């Protein structure tokens, strides 16, 4: 694990990078990294996140700045700018059921090729996905998702990079922290080793590549 500034962290991300960004309606999203992505104008991003948040918040700021070319997500209903960019063919949106999205990311992080889920069977989510019958029940083969970078926000991080999330800000963060080649973390509080008890660590230190230092 290395400590970096916000600028250094975002400078590592090239245009066109595939990013997973933690958060649910902007709660648990690393806002400092999002702001810096906008400031450095990283564009053509392939974004994977639970939802499109709202304009001006969380990943909504990346949409505001038109930096996203492809969005893989479960919900865009509260961000009218995504709908507008879709109509104008400025963004491609791949809608994935929320439980399927998190399992695909988990699979990517855990070395699985994918999972078999009943969700989406008999709906347009089926598309041309493979189907498998087990015990008379049909499942869709949903394949693993990975990314170049995961941008993670945590409540507590210790000096080694152990992370503990708080309340509903955990959401996609721990799963994404396993599914990217490079994991960059912002923390509300950076604390000495031992402040987070071993049983309360939610993302173990070896998963974290970069921790954004306090300014």
């Amino acid at each position, binding site marked *: 694990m290395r400590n970096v500034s916000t600028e250094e962290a975002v400078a590592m991300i090239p245009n066109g990078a595939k990013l997973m960004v933690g958060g649910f309606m902007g*709660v648990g999203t690393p806002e400092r990294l999002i702001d810096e992505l906008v400031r450095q104008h990283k564009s053509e991003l392939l974004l994977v996140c639970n939802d499109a948040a709202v304009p001006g918040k969380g990943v909504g700021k990346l949409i505001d700045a038109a930096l996203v070319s492809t969005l893989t997500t479960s919900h865009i209903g509260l961000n009218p700018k995504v709908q507008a960019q879709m109509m104008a063919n400025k963004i491609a949106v791949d809608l994935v*059921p*929320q439980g399927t999205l998190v*399992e695909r990311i988990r699979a990517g992080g855990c070395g699985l090729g994918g999972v078999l889920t009943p969700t989406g069977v008999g709906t347009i989510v089926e598309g041309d996905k493979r189907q498998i019958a087990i015990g008379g029940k049909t499942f869709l083969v949903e394949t693993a998702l990975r990314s170049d970078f995961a941008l993670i926000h945590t409540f507590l991080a210790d000096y080694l990079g152990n992370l503990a999330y708080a309340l509903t800000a955990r959401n996609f963060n721990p799963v994404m922290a396993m599914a990217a080649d490079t994991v960059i973390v912002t923390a509300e509080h950076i604390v000495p080793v031992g402040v987070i008890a071993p049983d309360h660590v939610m993302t173990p230190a070896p998963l974290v590549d970069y921790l954004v230092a306090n300014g």
Partner: protein
Amino acid sequence: MDAQTLIARRVALELRSGNLVNLGIGIPTLVANYLPPGLNVFFQSENGLIGTGPIPEQGMAHPLLTDAGGRPISALPGASTFDSAMSFGLIRGGHVDVTVLGGLQVDAEGHLANWMIPGKMVPGMGGAMDLVTGAKRVIVAMQHAAKGKSKIVQKCNLPLTSSRSVDLVVTDLAVIGFPDGRITLLETAPGISVAEVVAVTEADLLIPDTVPQMRF
């Protein structure tokens, strides 16, 4: 009593002590306000919480504690938090006893469409597909009709949320169920006759000999 309150109160009667319950956005959210006295249920918020409580007092909200719509909530004693993989493990794995969801259409087979209107509105399915597929019991809480058109249709022409049929539909006019797989009028709202329900319902309802008035 307005229509939304009636629906919410009727749905609340379906919950049992100890149930793990997930409420969708809109009318379903109101159900939590009308729990019968002494009934203890666990409410799940699919962004990662069991034990959601009411909107916090002024100045007590925490930005990291919200419902799935991003609005501040509180947590009750005994609450637990978890990541989205666990949250949907609970949902898809049948650990949610009851989910209450809004709907655009429910059809004679009990199929629900509630996540998009092609060419018009594509909000995305969020957690709805997992909830309908995985919850033990699915209750749809919605207006009976929209702009004069029945939302209880013979066959959904909007994209389905799941191939799994819902268990109960509660509207401002009626309670509808699917005993033996037949769409059936179970109760009528106060002051509404069976004939009135039939008149505004596109689906071909089975009408039992006696149809009691809606409890609430």
